[in-house]
């Protein structure tokens, strides 16, 4: 290198290094920017997933129980019953001497409230109730109703609870003056009924009707009846079945007997209705959970089971066992129920448990903290606290935190035997017409609905989209393809709300009108086209006129003609073979009901939404098969059809598979069409003439009715999570299969 040119060369190389540095810097920046963008997207999706999980996770949290306080009453007699106010501030304990109140805040006794109505009698038994209206059975054969009342007194911002006893009129039931030992009662708006065992097989039933007169006074009207049960052994427990107006009695020989109070003289009014198979087991506790529908029976072996009074196939009502709970180790003698939910408490002397009757799971087990014996228990009104009194005068108070007792994996995904149902079922019913209504939260019908809608949409879309794409890419005239393809792609831009609107208001009624024609359409069109193809093969003149790639000009009118023909034939078929009305016919021959908004309509509308996606991706992947593969197949003498089928199709199969999967994902997540065109009935029927409710539509439908933090609110998040998981699984599967196919049909 000459010295004279050296500076110039150095300058130029400097310049180029500078430029290089700048270019490298830009390159790095771009790389980092793209990486950052991708990372942010992944993070955002994970964050959404996290929020969804965060929102529904509390549903499945196991309940928490905390021992809030222990209260030593110093009483020496056994407790007969305990109870507390709504806010769990004041508790009462009933024993032979009377009723004593305690403060659960200070754990101290409150001033004594004497019951002058007792006279000199002692209390020998109590028919307890979580609502505070209790019946005391007395040692002189009388019963004394007492309303335990908690008055909330507000002074400024503070609320104090003032307990009060309002005794009713005592009634002499056992005229022999013996102590009342076994009794039960129920209270209604008109008054109350009390049943008392008067000897081993007889029960006295007293009905007290209370009428308030206009002056505010109360007049009582008392009637008394004696019911004799055909008992083996002795009656051990009694309970009123209020909804059926019956009295049930459990016996020491394991029987459950039922006396119809409405129609007492009819044959079979008093009869044995269950559990005779275990005469060695004594029924030790029996009561209904909230709603007076599900009976909980505890026995001397510690067993706890729920039963329902049901009419099944033969029309005769019977007690049916619904759930069996894990037995206690000692006889089940204690019971209490929640007045808000179907939760109930069962107890033996050594432990108490909280169960949920609907799904049959035991949620809490509490052994006695000091190994002593429980004698009385009570579940708080809201089901958030437990009070238990033991044989030694101590009262234990637990706080229970179980905001979603109704939701378990089983109740969401399993079959549940709901009250009043004939068998275990998957049911979604979030709100009902009556106060006693129990929400039923099985997501299975919704998952089913999503799959059903997707199935029918795909059934309609896949053949049309893929065959269409096949024809378009392999045989259609290029100029025509240039028009057809963008047009179909434009279909994808149609808002699904419009499709749903059309489906619900236009397609649904027309499909209903011309149902036989609609069903026949694909077959008639296929037939017409096949006939035309036959004619094409026979007639050389026809063959010469229709150029390859331009068949569409013949096929489109033929298809329209086929459609019209099938609609026309449909009306003929309906009038001559289907008794003139396909709905009646369907109902009578297949016992299928026809809903106007059904899976068929959704299949059509959603198929319409999915077709452009599947069509475009399929067409692209078919057209992207390298020309040289096609050429080498043709050069071997293969016909275009053979080439398309044996070379193009397998090579494009990964793309076609992707197309189907992406369409599937779209259909799974589609909301507006299924929302508008299905009727949203969460039934589980595969029939294409029934509606369904999809997960996505369910979220949209129920959202306004779901208060934040409530069970339904969280369940909707669970539904969203399921949708997420479904699309995730579909996409992952699709990607895996696609990669495998691509490896197999890789093209250089």
């Amino acid at each position, binding site marked *: 290198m000459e010295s004279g040119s050296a500076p110039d060369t150095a300058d130029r190389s400097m310049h180029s290094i500078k430029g290089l540095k700048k270019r490298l810097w830009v390159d790095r920046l771009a790389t980092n920017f793209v990486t950052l963008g991708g990372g942010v997207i992944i993070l955002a999706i994970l964050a959404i997933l996290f929020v969804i999980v965060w929102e529904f996770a509390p549903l499945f949290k196991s309940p928490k129980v905390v021992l809030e306080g222990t209260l030593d009453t110093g009483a020496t007699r056994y407790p007969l019953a305990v109870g507390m106010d709504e806010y769990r501030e004041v508790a009462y304990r009933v024993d032979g001497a009377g009723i004593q109140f305690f403060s659960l805040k200070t754990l101290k006794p409150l001033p004594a409230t004497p019951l002058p109505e007792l006279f000199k009698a002692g209390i020998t038994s109590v028919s307890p109730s979580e609502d505070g209206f209790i019946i005391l059975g007395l040692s002189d054969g009388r019963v004394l109703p007492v309303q335990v009342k908690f008055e909330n007194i507000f002074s400024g911002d503070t609320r104090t609870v003032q307990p009060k006893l309002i005794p009713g009129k005592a009634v002499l039931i056992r005229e022999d003056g013996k102590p009342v030992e076994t009794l039960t009662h129920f209270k209604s708006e008109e008054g109350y009924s009390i049943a008392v065992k008067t000897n081993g097989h007889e029960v006295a039933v007293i009905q007290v009707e209370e009428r308030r007169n206009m002056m505010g006074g109360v007049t009582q009207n008392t009637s008394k009846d004696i019911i004799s049960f055909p008992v083996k052994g002795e009656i051990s427990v009694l309970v009123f079945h209020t909804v059926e107006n019956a009295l049930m009695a459990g016996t020491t020989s394991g029987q459950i007997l039922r006396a119809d109070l409405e129609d007492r003289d009819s044959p079979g009014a008093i009869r044995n209705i269950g559990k005779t198979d275990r005469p060695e087991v004594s029924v030790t506790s029996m009561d209904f959970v909230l709603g007076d529908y599900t009976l909980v029976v505890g026995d001397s072996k510690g067993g706890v089971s729920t039963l329902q009074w049901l009419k099944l196939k033969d029309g005769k009502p019977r007690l049916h066992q619904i759930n069996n709970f894990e037995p206690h180790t000692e006889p089940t003698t204690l019971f209490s129920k929640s007045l808000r939910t179907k939760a109930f408490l069962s107890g033996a002397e050594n432990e108490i448990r909280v169960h949920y009757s609907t799904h049959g799971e035991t949620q809490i087990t509490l052994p006695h903290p000091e190994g002593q014996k429980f004698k009385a228990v009570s579940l708080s009104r809201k089901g958030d606290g437990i009070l238990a009194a033991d044989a030694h005068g101590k009262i234990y108070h637990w706080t229970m935190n179980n905001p979603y007792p109704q939701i378990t994996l089983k109740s969401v995904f399993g079959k549940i035997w709901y009250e009043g149902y004939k068998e275990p079922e998957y049911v979604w019913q979030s709100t009902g017409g009556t106060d006693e209504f129990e929400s039923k939260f099985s997501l299975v019908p919704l998952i089913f609905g999503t799959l059903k809608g997707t199935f029918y949409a795909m059934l309609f879309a896949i053949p049309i989209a893929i065959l269409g794409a096949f024809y378009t890419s392999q045989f259609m005239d290029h100029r025509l393809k240039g028009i057809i393809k963008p047009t179909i792609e434009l279909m994808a831009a149609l808002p699904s709300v419009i499709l749903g609107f059309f489906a619900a208001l236009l397609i649904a009624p027309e499909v209903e009108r011309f149902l036989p024609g609609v069903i026949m359409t694909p077959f008639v069109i296929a037939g017409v086209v096949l006939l035309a193809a036959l004619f094409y093969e026979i007639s050389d003149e026809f063959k010469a006129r229709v150029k390859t790639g331009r068949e569409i000009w013949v096929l489109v009118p033929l298809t329209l003609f086929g459609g019209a023909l099938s609609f026309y034939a449909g009306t003929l078929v309906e009038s001559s073979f289907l008794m003139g009305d396909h709905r009646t016919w369907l109902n009578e021959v297949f016992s299928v009901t026809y809903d106007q908004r059904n899976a068929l309509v959704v299949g059509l509308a959603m198929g319409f939404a999915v077709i452009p996606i599947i069509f475009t991706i399929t067409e692209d992947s078919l057209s992207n098969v390298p020309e040289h593969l096609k*050429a080498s197949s043709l*050069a071997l003498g293969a016909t275009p059809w053979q080439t398309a089928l044996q070379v193009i199709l397998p090579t494009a199969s990964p793309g076609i598979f992707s197309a189907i999967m992406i369409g599937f994902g779209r259909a799974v997540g589609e909301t507006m069409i299924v929302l508008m065109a299905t009727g949203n009935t969460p039934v589980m029927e595969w029939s294409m003439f029934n509606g369904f409710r999809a997960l996505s539509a369910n979220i949209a439908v129920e959202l306004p009715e779901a208060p934040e933090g409530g069970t339904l609110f969280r369940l909707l998040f669970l539904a969203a999570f399921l949708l997420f998981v479904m699309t995730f699984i579909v996409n992952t599967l699709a990607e895996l299969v696609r990669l495998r196919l691509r490896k197999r049909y*890789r093209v250089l």
Partner: protein
Amino acid sequence: MAIIKLRSGNQDMENYKVEKKVENRVPSNEMAHLKLKGLGNPMVEIENLNFFYGEKKALNNINMIIPKHQVTAFIGPSGCGKSTLLRCLNRMNDLVESARMEGAIRIGGRDLHQESENVSVLRKRVGMVFQKFNPFPKTIFENVAYGPKIHGLKNKAKLEEIVENSLKSVALWDEVKDRLNESALALSGGQQQRLCIARAIAVEPEVLLMDEPCSALDPLSTGKIEELVVGLKENYTIVIVTHNMQQAARIADFTGFMLLGDLVEFGPTDRMFTKPNKKETEDYITGRFG
């Protein structure tokens, strides 16, 4: 060498264009002469062939005879129409929408464009091997068996026999016999091209067209293919298009030199490379352009 000369070669082509009207075709009398000279049986006869892509004329009044069981090479610069001519022989040009052909081509005495001539049958008779080796994304076996299968052969044993024989005749059998069910795409480039030849001869064509079969291959693989081509002429009439004049010299019995859609000269390879009749041929062969 030829590539370096390309630029000046274009210049020459321009010059040539001017004079081509004067004298540029093999006249029919020479054709008769060729026949008389006893070139064996004529396999392919091309008469007054004109070929158009839309308005553009790609082949200009071609007349030639391709003898049976010989290797015939078409040489010429890019765009001279040699591939188009080749593709006329199995009507692959039909795939090009605006293509149009005039004149007659007879293979084994049968006119390609007769009404009754089925293109599928024609292509079975006239096999083709492409410039870019293009095995199907199937197994080695399926690739070779594809042709017989589409022509209706279902007998498994017969298919196996055909596959074995075809692979043997391209000297690929020993290399792949243990992995017939593996993807053909796992083979090397040279192997893939030999597989494509095997695939073409599996349908037992009469004529085998090869469109620059070695242009994407390394010299070693090229050598193998060339060896193969020479061996195959025993059973097939081979027409090969090549860019490589040495290749034509090595393997072809007859060579046709094409320029701008004209068949400038056609004759036995020895004479073409030693004593070309036309100046253009000589210029091309000696590397003055092209």
